């Protein structure tokens, strides 16, 4: 069995940034395993601009952002294998992979970084009534078809769900000559970024119907029409509000789910809210030497934060390897919790003695809040209180914790993040 210091599962934005960071931390034998035929992951199909404002202080398209990291991987001569599917990760970090050329083989890893990303919630998970004809795509599938393969899925489009990919595809299909008739969103607010509502829907006069869902799909071979209806506060369709749209395409943009089949099989403990691993402040899972970052850990809306998080995972995996695979956990472990409108935090625990001087805790809220406060409590004492004009489930939030402050609070057991009205 060949062995590597660090094996990274996934060559998208998280895997690339983790690899570069681990190399800069002095790790020699790094291997990236990627199932697609090129590095870059989802960025390759995200040809729109808006990436990299934080990282590079300029607006890049997805492929350009990816190339900045791919170039570094090439310069650093980091090994990668394409068209390679990871089949299994054991809890002692033996990675089983498969490719057409090499068949099935195993690699012993000093540390593993999980960077598999996420995938879209499919129709089967949405309980939409009606026929099951051709012409129904997840928004991301349509994005790949249009932007990478050069095929148009259809000409008359209805979109269910207002996640960012759905909004971006509404504009993209319009620019390529399709008529996007309506975007229906089950929730009373959009899950996408505000800028995308403006520049993808408003710019092109595409209506966004909040609190609406698809109640019927017509067409036996190929989709011919959908019916949408308004929903009440229990998300049940209101009779009499139905509207029928003829169409040849229905795109679904109804949420992303971290892709954790491998993590589950390996015995990684999961957070039921994020559907991603539970990690400590070093982004290490409950399995020693197995780290997670990017959308497999929790779904991000900005790739810049994925890169930042992945760089941290890479550096910590490097530390673990250089330490000879021995855990160096301190005795003061603090639990991090989200309550009162905050849904989850990453990380879930902090090892105070070994934490970074400044630690970013990322979280999401459960509903839309206006003029509310993000509060941080050390046990019962409120230590941070930040006013926010708007907090929305579609936009990830963060607070920064200072190690010095945590060291001062000697008996600190739990840090809680809450959303408060005042």
């Amino acid at each position, binding site marked *: 069995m060949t062995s590597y210091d660090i094996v990274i599962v996934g060559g998208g934005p998280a895997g690339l940034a983790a690899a570069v960071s681990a190399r800069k931390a002095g790790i020699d034998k790094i291997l990236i395993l990627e199932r697609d035929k090129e590095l870059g992951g989802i960025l390759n199909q995200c040809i729109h601009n808006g990436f990299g404002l934080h990282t590079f202080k300029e607006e890049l398209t997805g492929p350009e952002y990816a190339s900045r990291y791919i170039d570094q991987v090439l310069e650093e001569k980091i090994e990668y294998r394409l068209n390679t599917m990871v089949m299994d990760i054991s809890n002692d970090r033996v990675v089983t992979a498969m490719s057409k050329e090499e068949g099935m083989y195993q690699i012993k890893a000093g540390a593993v970084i999980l960077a598999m990303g996420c995938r879209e919630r499919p129709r089967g998970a949405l309980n939409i009534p009606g026929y099951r004809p051709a012409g129904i795509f997840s928004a991301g599938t349509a994005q790949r078809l249009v932007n990478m393969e050069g095929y148009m899925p259809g000409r008359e489009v209805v979109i269910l769900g207002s996640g960012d990919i759905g909004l971006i595809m509404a504009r993209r299909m319009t*620019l390529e000559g399709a008529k996007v008739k309506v975007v229906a969103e089950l929730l009373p607010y959009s899950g996408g970024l505000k800028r995308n509502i403006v520049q993808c829907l408003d710019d092109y006069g595409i209506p966004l119907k909040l609190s609406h869902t698809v109640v019927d799909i017509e067409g036996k071979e190929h989709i011919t029409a959908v019916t949408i209806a308004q929903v009440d506060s229990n998300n049940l369709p209101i009779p009499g509000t139905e509207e029928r749209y003829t169409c040849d395409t229905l795109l679904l943009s109804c949420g992303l789910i971290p892709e954790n089949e491998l993590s589950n099989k390996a015995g990684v403990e999961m957070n039921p809210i994020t559907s991603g691993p539970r990690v400590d402040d070093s982004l290490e899972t409950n399995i020693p030497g197995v780290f997670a970052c990017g959308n497999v850990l929790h779904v991000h809306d900005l790739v810049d934060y994925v890169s930042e998080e992945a760089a941290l995972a890479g550096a910590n995996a490097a530390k673990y390897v250089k330490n000879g695979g021995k855990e160096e956990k301190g005795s003061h472990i603090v639990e991090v919790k989200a309550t009162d409108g905050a849904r989850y935090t990453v990380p879930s625990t902090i090892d105070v003695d070994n934490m970074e001087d400044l630690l970013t805790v990322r979280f999401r809220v459960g509903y839309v809040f206006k003029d509310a406060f993000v509060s941080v409590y050390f046990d019962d004492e409120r230590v941070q209180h930040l006013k926010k004009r708007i907090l929305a489930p579609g*936009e990830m939030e963060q607070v920064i914790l200072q190690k010095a402050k945590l060291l001062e609070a000697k008996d600190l057991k739990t840090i809680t993040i809450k959303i408060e009205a005042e």
Partner: protein
Amino acid sequence: MERKDLTCIGCPMGCTVTVEFEGEEVLEVSGNTCAIGDQYARNEVFHPERTITSTVTVDGGDKPRCSVKTAGNIPKDKIYECMKLIDATRVKAPVKIGDVVIKNVLGTGVDVVATKNVS
């Protein structure tokens, strides 16, 4: 005096920016949290502009399409004309990020450039 509320598209924060103007003159911009918002609002009321991204066909490359963008903003009312030109464009591999695909598109002074390497 007229007022217009806009959502800034300069970054993911999406600030609500209010512009007060008289005729063609902007009197005040408020609600923005940075200089990008101020600039966006001043442009947006009278001369809205956008960056356009799309793809062009590649001949002889390892990929069928190459993604492209306008290297800067172009007037919003030229978007569809610009798309027509982009759709009619074919390039030959190899293509490098930054290669000019259409020079000075529609006389805007802005080039359409490749955003992907195709070998």
